[in-house]
């Protein structure tokens, strides 16, 4: 599982930093390193850019996994240099940004340098595709293990719309029609009759619009064991 990120436009980042003369930069050694958006070379590149525009970089670090709880200790170790800065620039995914802001003792702005895109599947080295919406009520058992919620541009649950042509989505030549893929896989398995079953209304209350979701993995382990 990888959180896929892309760099924000330089103008947007510089806009955030307009009022900050001194900046502390944080990268992440996991997903952002792999996406080449927040690893060591990108952090050093950012440092050079900021210094080139007349700002002072008080320090930088690459937290091994910025989204986890240990980030708190990494921040404590760098407290002096962070204190000196007017803000923190986080070259991490949005979970990293929020984890840093949560654990930062010395309250100051934490600005994101990246856009967090999706949980991606690596099709080939360095190429990622969004394959899961994290909807909270998985339909893969009924869709030949291909998620139409995120791979179909209209999140259709009951088959391809009228815009499916030659295996492509109407939205772009670069998007394979998810329902064509599902159809082909069901055909291979001799299960095409499943295409006529009507998928029930989706319960979005367990998804992004249902309010923040929480899980207590420890408690789950206790109840299931």
């Amino acid at each position, binding site marked *: 599982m990888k959180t896929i990120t892309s760099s924000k436009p330089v103008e947007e980042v510089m806009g955030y930093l307009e009022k900050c003369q001194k900046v502390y930069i944080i990268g992440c050694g996991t997903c952002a390193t792999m996406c080449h958006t927040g690893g060591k070379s990108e952090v050093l590149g950012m440092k050079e850019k900021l210094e080139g525009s007349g700002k002072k970089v008080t320090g930088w670090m690459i937290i091994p996994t910025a989204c986890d709880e240990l980030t708190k200790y990494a921040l404590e170790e760098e407290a002096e240099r962070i204190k000196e800065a007017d803000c923190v620039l986080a070259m991490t995914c949005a979970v990293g940004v929020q984890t840093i802001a949560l654990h930062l003792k010395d309250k100051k702005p934490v600005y994101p340098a990246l856009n967090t895109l999706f949980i991606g599947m690596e099709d080939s080295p360095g190429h990622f595709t969004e394959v899961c919406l994290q909807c909270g009520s998985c339909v893969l058992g009924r869709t030949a293990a291909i998620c139409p919620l995120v791979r179909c*541009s*209209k*999140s*259709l*649950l*009951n*088959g*391809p*719309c*009228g*815009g*499916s*042509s*030659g*295996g492509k989505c*109407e*939205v772009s030549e670069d998007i394979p*029609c998810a329902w*064509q893929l599902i*159809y*082909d896989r069901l055909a291979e398995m001799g299960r*095409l009759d499943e*295409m*006529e079953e*009507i*998928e029930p*209304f*989706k319960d*979005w209350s367990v998804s992004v619009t249902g309010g923040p979701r929480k899980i207590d993995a420890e408690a789950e382990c206790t109840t299931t064991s």
Partner: protein
Amino acid sequence: MKAGTKLERILASGKFAVTAEAGPPKGTSAEAIRKKGELLRHCCDAVNVTDNQTAIVRMSSLAGCLLLKQQGIEPVMQMVVRDRNRLALQGDVLGAVALGIGNILCLSGDHQKFGNHPGAKGVFDIDSIQLLQTLRMMRDEHKFISGEDISGEVPVFIGAAANPFADPFEYRVHRLAKKLKAGADFIQTQAVYDVPRFARWMEMLTERGLDKQVHILAGVIPIRSAGMARYMRDYVPGVNVPDEIVTRMEKSESPKEEGVKIILEIVEQLKDMPGVHGIHIMAVGWEDIVPDVVAKSGLMPRPVV
């Protein structure tokens, strides 16, 4: 009778139905709708009012339908699931019924990327097949999706779209069966230019007896120019214009006349095709040709039922 609309009565009586499409204006002019209504009044049985067609903001379908209704013209309200969630869709159905609108066509809607607000969030809370289910549940069980009771009757004649020109082709009959199972009473298809492919699709569904369970209205779009033919062939999702038609338009010295001739030839074949119960004319921006097309097809005067 499900709703007893004129469209339903005509189809139930076995007569060949004619519907046409009227796109609402990108503005507030009631007159713009009324003008289209007057043009179409005598040559078709019901007029579809599109719902933010091609993802471009226009006057709402509900308002457009009411304006037609006030003129004594029967509307078909189109509803796409792109712009509204299940609360808004169901609320608008109640409103439409209260205003005397009885025909509703359920659609997915073109993707917002194609329209004038490409940054909009596509809703797609439910899909078009689930919208059909919703309408049938509201009508037959007097219940909302939630299972709660609706007060009052919800007499609606439920329509769905079908596109025999999209892929996978073999699936298109299954999709129709699925829409029927979900609640469709009538179908308006994507524009037919490739008559042999359409005929194959009709054959496949008549073999399954589906034509006995749902009324199929074949879509037609009159072509005005060679440019329009090329554009529809190359850029309009889900439309399949054979090269032969594009060439005919390109070679013609009076393309408008040629376009009408082509459509009349297509309508002639559709009229005789087993299982086709009517035509749906989508003369986008060329509504004044519709009376001519209907008259020359021998479909005038329209029946009184």
